[in-house]
């Protein structure tokens, strides 16, 4: 139980949740409009790379973040075009983007910066400790020395919930993901709404990638996402395609990973500890969360018969 009183456990929980929550919420936007998105991994890598590159070139990490968002938006636009306009298989496209993202970032890294990685002088986004938060007893453990993106994430959860469930555009996006034909008969522009969802998803995934490269570090490395895009996919489903759910799942996974990290170094074999986050996820899913149903038209291209 002393483990639970370790501030590092809780700081790590929040910190490790960020690169899952952004893409998971991003995926929520995409899938709520009916486009299955498993391209988060590739888009995160693209975001992570351009964040560092532009942060280095301009000397301003905020411009780096902006570049990540633009790059993520562009890649997801390409994905959206093929998924929506060409009605290509969305899962295959997603995998293609993942290959592409991993390859292009490695290629650019090596041709522009060489094999040793990005320059160490690259500026990173600031770490912030709000005294008001950091001095609260238990809460303070969470908010000690966190990246600004942590706070952005908390804001994002609330804003995207409001956006999806309390705005006209949000309602329309969800309608398109449930029954595009019905939405079409009501005069909604199905394709445009889907583009919107996918591109928002790409931008958010890219921020998740940027968190890894200039949020907590200041460098890019090949495959530095290490499968987080796929875990984010799971977090999105776990969270039943809602922002709060996705965030909750990301926190759970962050907690389990952080717990594993803290427990490492004891006598328990590291591989068994490494199973912890995954095992906990299954238990939580089976025990607490139960059935989650995708938006009804998720993954089905909409081709009006015109």
């Amino acid at each position, binding site marked *: 139980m002393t483990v639970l009183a370790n501030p590092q456990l809780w700081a790590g929980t929040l910190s490790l949740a960020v690169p899952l929550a952004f893409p998971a919420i991003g995926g929520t936007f995409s899938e709520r409009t009916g486009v299955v998105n498993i391209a988060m991994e590739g888009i995160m890598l693209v975001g992570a790379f351009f964040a560092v590159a532009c942060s280095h070139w301009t000397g301003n990490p905020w411009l780096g973040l902006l570049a990540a968002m633009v790059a993520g938006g562009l890649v997801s636009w390409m994905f959206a075009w093929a998924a929506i306009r060409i009605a290509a298989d969305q899962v295959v496209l997603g995998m293609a983007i993942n290959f592409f993202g991993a390859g292009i970032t490695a290629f650019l890294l090596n041709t522009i910066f060489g094999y040793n990685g990005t320059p160490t002088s690259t500026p990173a986004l600031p770490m912030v400790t709000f005294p008001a938060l950091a001095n609260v007893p238990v809460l303070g453990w969470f908010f000690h020395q966190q990246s600004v993106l942590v706070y952005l994430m908390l804001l994002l959860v609330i804003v995207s919930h409001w956006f999806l469930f309390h705005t006209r*555009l949000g*309602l329309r996006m969800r*309608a398109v993901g449930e*029954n595009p034909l019905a939405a079409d008969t009501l*005069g909604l522009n199905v394709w445009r709404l889907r583009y919107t969802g996918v591109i928002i998803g790409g931008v958010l995934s890219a921020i998740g990638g940027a968190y890894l490269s200039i949020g907590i570090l200041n460098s890019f490395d090949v495959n530095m996402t290490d499968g987080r895009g796929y875990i984010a996919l799971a977090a999105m489903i776990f969270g039943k395609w809602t922002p709060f759910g996705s965030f909750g799942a990301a926190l759970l996974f962050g907690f389990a990973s952080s717990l594993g990290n803290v427990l490492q170094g004891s006598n328990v074999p590291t591989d068994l500890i490494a199973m912890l986050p995954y095992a906990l996820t299954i238990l939580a899913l089976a025990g607490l969360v139960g059935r989650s149903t995708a*938006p009804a038209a998720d993954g089905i291209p909409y081709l009006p018969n015109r």
Partner: protein
Amino acid sequence: MTKAFPGVVANDHVNLSLRQGEVHAILGENGAGKSTLMKLIYGLYQPDAGEIWLEGRPVHFHSPRDAIRAGIGMVHQHFMLIPALSVADNVVLGDEPGKIRYDRREAIRRVRALSEQYRLAIDPTAKIGSLSVGLQQRVEILKAFYRKAKVLILDEPTALLTPQETEELFEVVRHLKAEGVPVLFISHKLDEVRAIADRVTVMRAGKTVETVPVAGATAQELANLMVGRDVVLRIDKKPAEPGPVVLDVRDVRVHGADKQEHVRGVSFQVHGGEIFGLAGIDGNGQFELVDAIAGLLRVSGGAVHFDGRDITHLSPADRTTAGISYVPQDRQLDGLVLEFDLVENTILRDFRRRPFSRAGWLNRVPALRYAERLIEQFDVRPRNVHRKAGELSGGNQQKVILAREVARDPKLLIVAQPTRGLDVGAIEGIHRELIRLRDEGKAVLLVSLELDEILSLSDRIGVIHHGEMVDIVPGDTATREQIGLLMTGVRPNGATEEVTNA
């Protein structure tokens, strides 16, 4: 206008004109091309040839958005609803109150007002997915009225309405007509057409045959015009010769998928050689009851005996094998695997037994022969067993299901809404088939929201209200008024119950 789909010309140089303030009915057999024409007008399909003129000007609708902008409203035959959203969300979608924020409260208010105005009672906050199809029909109608159309298209709006609701709808239509709004109205119910329409256009096999004024035309004339031959509208049947009890339902209680109790202790018996009609307003537990008899819902109290045997706890497969056939209410969701071809769909309930399979191996050839025989016998069109069920028109889908269930030679046939959305010709065929089965000594349990159907076919009629059997009356003496009263929960001894719909 012309519109072709791979393999069919659904609309072949169709002409139609709609005058200010008229109600114009379209009649035609299933698959004649009515819905296709409506979708062309609504911008949902693009014509291969031809054009639309609106108020003296040619218009071109690239999508429903253009049509809506031009003031066209439509009630779709297959509902265009979003099950995960609420009634209010569905009605206002595309024209929601609020600026950026969606003013949900205002939407609910507007929908409530609308539903009161048109007397289509509905709870605006209910999820569509939890509503019966009858209630969904109301939502679909409310959607069209919400938008205040200049031209209104109604594609079989009354298929699931009660007579009272239909009358309310007609009131609205007459009102619109008085305001000069032209209405296109599709229905297979000839009485309705005669009651509301000014002119009628008959379609056959994708072509417009004729446009005639309704005044003076009899139902028989319309029917003949539409089918192209003489149709028997009234069915003559011999008196029933009831045999032993086949189905014995004893104080059965059923909870639905929503965990609510829908059937609260119902008892009745069905004999061989009789048609037992189960009448009731939609949502009173009749469909849960038959689902439970077929084994798709668990019985939470009471017992079901079939052929002298307690089947309360048998699996659906075992009940099928024991000789129960079931035509479920929702043909697309329950009755068919739309992606399967007709061969696979005709053996859907019998693939386990010979000759269709042996020790786990499917035998394609007997299945193929069987399917070919059935679609021949039941006149399924097009006559191609390799078509996917989803590519058939709704009427033909229904025929496939009926063919499959009848051909199994069951002891008990349960049919729910067997003629929903079918044309008169097809209805005639299905009704004949049901009576033939009865005369062969089978037990038939008929559930229908169509009072006329119940009255014309049933030997005995049970009326269900709020999950309870109000009364069971003989079919030959029953009247519309008597049954209609029972359906609202007024018991024969005069005691009334609160009227509920959901």
